[in-house]
């Protein structure tokens, strides 16, 4: 029997206790995820519109299950808007789509998919997924929590690269080794800032070598998580019999990252890049310390937060750290990749570099990276991966529900030249993706995908769709982070925190642009499970809490959205309740109300109207009511519906 001794920090042990059981998994190299990807035969299934559907239908047929019908057009439209851009369609776009759908539904759908993939908001949406893995934040994270004034340049690079559909292998190469490329462009130097996003302790008197080591451990672990789906950090302290990565191999990977220093390089930003220096008020009304203000002024030259490889005479030797203690040196090691995977080829007598590591990840013989990457795209479009533990493809992770489909997708991703957009397009055009999410058989799990999953939208999207439905949304892409209003008692928990409230358009920027100050995470985002940016996050939790209800009901930003929608509905439709309520529903849920819903909302509206009459007024016949407020309250009900924050 195996006993897992659970532990903490970066320490984990699995020891064999009692009788040992002989099984294939005892040899990590035999684990499914490390086997070569062989193009699977596509099942011949009647009615399958695509290979994806064929693989899914084959499993469903085996289990004597039937797939769900295609979702209603308005549901599909809302689904692709949310999945591809994280925003809602406007009423105009809904009308146009419905007209096109009437003519030719297939053409209308695929044209809309192409349109959304080409939208600049696509990059914002998919950058957010990647930024979770990049543990992106705008501050250092430890005491002092100094601002990283130019971190957003990296964030914008991600958005731009995704919008430009930079092939994933190049996207990876530039982030892992952009600084090492021959004559790197400024963009490539910015991209190498991927591994500058980790936490950094600058507290006076700290053990800075320990912190440096922890940063390199984090870079190694993040690389393992993002590209290999392996929890390599488990191996920092010990060997684990059943894992693909031994302690020595962990430090061989670590060695790739152990000879860099942090570099903040001045860069010139193209005038059309949207990368303009942030403007700070000379006399800020919010509480900014003088020190902070001075730092900001000094920082007006854009800096790429990047890495620089150390020169020959400064190079560090890498040792295994006995029990993870960096002061206890074990064997000396050189950069190398785990033996359970394909071999790394480098020029003879040359020490492999981060460039070699990046090329190794995209080597045709690599069995795991394509699976990990394809699975992660799938996870973003179905709410859960084919391997549900998208950060753990190791022996302790979940097995794939559709191994052949996963392999087909992995192969397809490569055949598509690592085009993220093409991969997404392939999936969202499938019938499997387009199924209704209605859970008509609640007792039946959905591993086999007899329906689409219904997924609560992510934290940033909760904000974005409020702004989007109300029309308040600023569609500006990129630039310095913004500071939405925050009560002082929240901001002041950190040390010398300045939260200079943003003005004008910046109040209505997308959630992705909210400053991620690690000691003062924006509470609305945290309430909806945005990660705390300490380590790479491959899949977010999806909790459901009363704090979320309070936020949706009472957060001033969300109420402002309800006010706009309610006021506009009232101004447009006056006392024509049916039309006004239909309008509210179309703007937020992107569909008309059912009769029952219409009745329920009309009843609520009637009661709201009564409530707006003060007791004094009510005594006299025809007392003053506030129909606009009643409509705002009705809009607020609609924005609080589960369906509003759900991608069905």
């Amino acid at each position, binding site marked *: 029997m195996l006993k897992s001794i659970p532990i903490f920090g970066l320490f984990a042990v699995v020891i064999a206790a009692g009788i040992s059981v002989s099984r294939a998994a005892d040899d990590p190299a035999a684990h499914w995820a490390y086997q070569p990807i062989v193009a699977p035969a596509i099942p011949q299934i009647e009615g399958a519109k695509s290979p994806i559907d064929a693989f899914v239908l084959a499993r469903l047929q085996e289990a004597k299950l039937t797939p769900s019908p295609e979702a209603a057009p308005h549901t599909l439209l809302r689904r692709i808007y949310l999945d591809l851009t994280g925003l809602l369609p406007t009423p105009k776009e809904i009308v146009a789509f419905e007209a096109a759908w009437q003519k030719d539904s297939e053409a209308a759908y695929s044209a809309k998919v192409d349109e959304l993939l080409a939208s600049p908001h696509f990059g914002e949406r998919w950058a957010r997924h990647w930024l979770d893995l990049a543990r992106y934040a705008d501050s250092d994270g430890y005491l002092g929590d100094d601002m990283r004034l130019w971190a957003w340049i990296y964030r914008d690079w991600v958005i731009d690269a995704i919008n430009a559909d930079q092939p994933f292998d190049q996207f990876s190469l530039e982030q892992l080794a952009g600084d090492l490329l021959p004559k790197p462009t400024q963009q490539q130097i910015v991209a190498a800032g991927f591994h500058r996003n980790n936490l950094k302790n600058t507290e006076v008197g700290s053990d800075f070598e320990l912190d440096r080591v922890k940063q390199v451990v984090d870079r190694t672990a993040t690389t393992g998580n993002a590209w290999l789906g392996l929890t390599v950090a488990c191996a920092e302290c010990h060997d684990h019999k059943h894992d693909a990565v031994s302690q020595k191999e962990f430090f061989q990977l670590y060695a790739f990252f152990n000879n860099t220093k942090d570099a903040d390089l001045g860069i010139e930003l193209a005038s059309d890049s949207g990368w303009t220096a942030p403007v700070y008020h000379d006399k800020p009304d919010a509480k900014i310390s003088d020190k902070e203000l001075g730092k900001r002024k000094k920082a007006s030259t854009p800096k790429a937060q990047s890495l620089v490889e150390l020169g020959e005479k400064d190079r560090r030797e890498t040792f295994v750290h006995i029990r993870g203690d960096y002061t206890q040196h074990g064997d000396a090691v050189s950069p190398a990749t785990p033996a359970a995977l394909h071999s790394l080829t480098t020029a003879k007598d040359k020490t492999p570099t981060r460039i070699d590591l990046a090329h190794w990840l995209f080597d045709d013989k690599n069995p795991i990276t394509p699976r990990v990457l394809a699975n992660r795209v799938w996870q973003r479009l179905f709410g859960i991966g084919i391997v549900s533990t998208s950060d753990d493809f190791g022996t302790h992770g979940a097995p794939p529900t559709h191994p052949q489909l996963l392999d087909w997708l992995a192969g397809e991703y490569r055949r598509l030249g690592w085009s993220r957009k093409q991969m997404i397009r392939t999936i969202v055009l499938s019938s499997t993706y387009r199924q209704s999410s209605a859970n008509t058989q609640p007792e039946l799990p959905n591993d086999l995908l007899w329906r689409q999953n*219904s997924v609560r939208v992510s934290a940033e999207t909760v904000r974005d769709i409020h702004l989007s439905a109300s029309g308040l949304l600023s569609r500006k892409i990129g630039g310095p982070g913004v500071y939405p209003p925050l009560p002082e008692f929240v901001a002041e928990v950190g040390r010398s925190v300045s939260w200079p409230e943003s003005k004008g358009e910046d109040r209505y920027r997308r959630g992705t642009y909210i400053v991620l100050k690690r000691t003062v995470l924006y509470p609305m985002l945290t309430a909806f499970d945005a990660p705390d940016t300490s380590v790479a996050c491959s899949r977010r939790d999806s909790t459901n809490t009363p704090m979320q209800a309070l936020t949706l009901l009472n957060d001033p930003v969300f109420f402002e959205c309800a006010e706009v929608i309610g006021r506009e509905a009232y101004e447009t439709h006056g006392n024509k309740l049916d039309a006004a309520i239909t309008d509210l529903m179309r703007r937020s849920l992107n569909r008309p109300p059912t009769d029952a819903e219409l009745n329920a909302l009309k009843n609520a509206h009637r009661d709201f109207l009564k409530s707006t009459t003060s007791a004094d007024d009510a005594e006299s016949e025809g007392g003053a009511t506030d129909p606009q407020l009643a409509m705002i309250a009705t809009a607020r009900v609609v924005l609080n519906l589960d369906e509003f924050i759900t991608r069905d």
Partner: protein
Amino acid sequence: MIDPSQFATNASRRRFLQTTASGLGTVALAQLLQDDGLLAAPGSNSLTRAPHFAPKAKRCIYLFMEGGPSQMDLFDPKPKLNELDGQAMPESLLEGVKFSFTKKETARLMGSPRTFKKYGQCGMDMSDLVPHLTEHADDIAMVRSAYCDQFNHLPGQLLMLTGSPFRGAPTLGSWLNYGLGSASHDLPGYVVMTTLGRGLPGGSASWSSGFLPSNYSGALFRNQGSPVLNLENPPGITPEMQARSIAAVNELNQQRFSDSGQAEIASRIRNYELAFRMQSAAPELSDLSGESPATLEAYGLNRVDKTGFESSFARNCLLARRLVERGTRFVTLFLSTWDQHSNLDSELATNTKISDQPVAALLTDLKERGLLDETLVVWGGEFGRTPLGENRSGFKTVTGRDHHPYSFSLWMAGGGVKGGQVIGKTDEIGWGVEEDPIHVHDLHATILHLFGFDHEELTYRFQGRDFRLTDVHGNVVKKLLA
């Protein structure tokens, strides 16, 4: 899978909504539902675990004294240190020692100007800075032999709060709510209040759920005005309209649930009900009009000082009692800062003036209400302070002490702790631990034990590994147990 009992609840809820679809009163909504709420643990991935054995403690109030209180000026008298005042420390003791600021070579031992006496039947030493606490000597288990391996604030605080010096791990309060859920029907299971000078080094990481789902995070309460973020209705929305809104939201969500079968909707409905209850429960919590003048006086709520810290901390202590009374599982009160690198004498006196009376009143109050037996109270910081005076460059005079992880004092009371005893012993000058060393992990193991958990068994799987509060360490300190 949907729990069949859910349908029963839903059916009754539907009947209710049908009969009261208009003109819903607030009371009706609040009373409607069966008390199904474990407020801290309603998520889909939040199964409340049962304790491993009968717990002694049901609730905890953790008084976190941020910055590192000076133990030899409060709880650990060192006559020998006073005798050696001004002398160099033996070199053997300094070998391999790291300081944040102190220059080792020229540092000199610094005695304490405080006067100590023995209190209670147990004869516990306490200094003249804590006159009120002396009344509780027989309730308190004083630990003089705590130690850790972090000599800087944030790593030290994270270690004390989460068991790991690095960011990203769940705090003790999150672990306990993960393990036990909240016993409150209308308040969060984990509440944090602060009295801050400079702010907290870790900010919100100080009550983070780390890799546990975010519903186990502490809820930051403020002690003035509306206690919780977004608790107040938006302008123009009356309580009546709020009640009607929630009824409408739930009615429509119910329709959607019937049509789509999505289990999350049922959970959403319940959370709107809980949110609504919290809207009345939280203001009720902060409304102290029902407290007797004697109680307010005892806590020192009406004390006036320039910074307002005295009344703020007193209020937090009283609110902590009110919270645990209402079923909140874990309350952390932060008092910042005890980081006296200079002006130790006056600043320490300021801190104890803020805290001594309310903390003693809290113990008395809990005891009188019969709550202390099942409420664990912990008082302590992240480390202690050096027996050496701090002589960092730039300091004209030596008036403070540096960080000291090698030995420090903290105390616990109630919740199954054996009071009236001093545990552990430091050496003559208060540098190292001579008897019963108690690491932070041991403290955590003991606290979990008091709550009925084997610290090796309370685990959470994250990124392929089972994590626990105590890493691979921790031994229950038997002496602390009643």
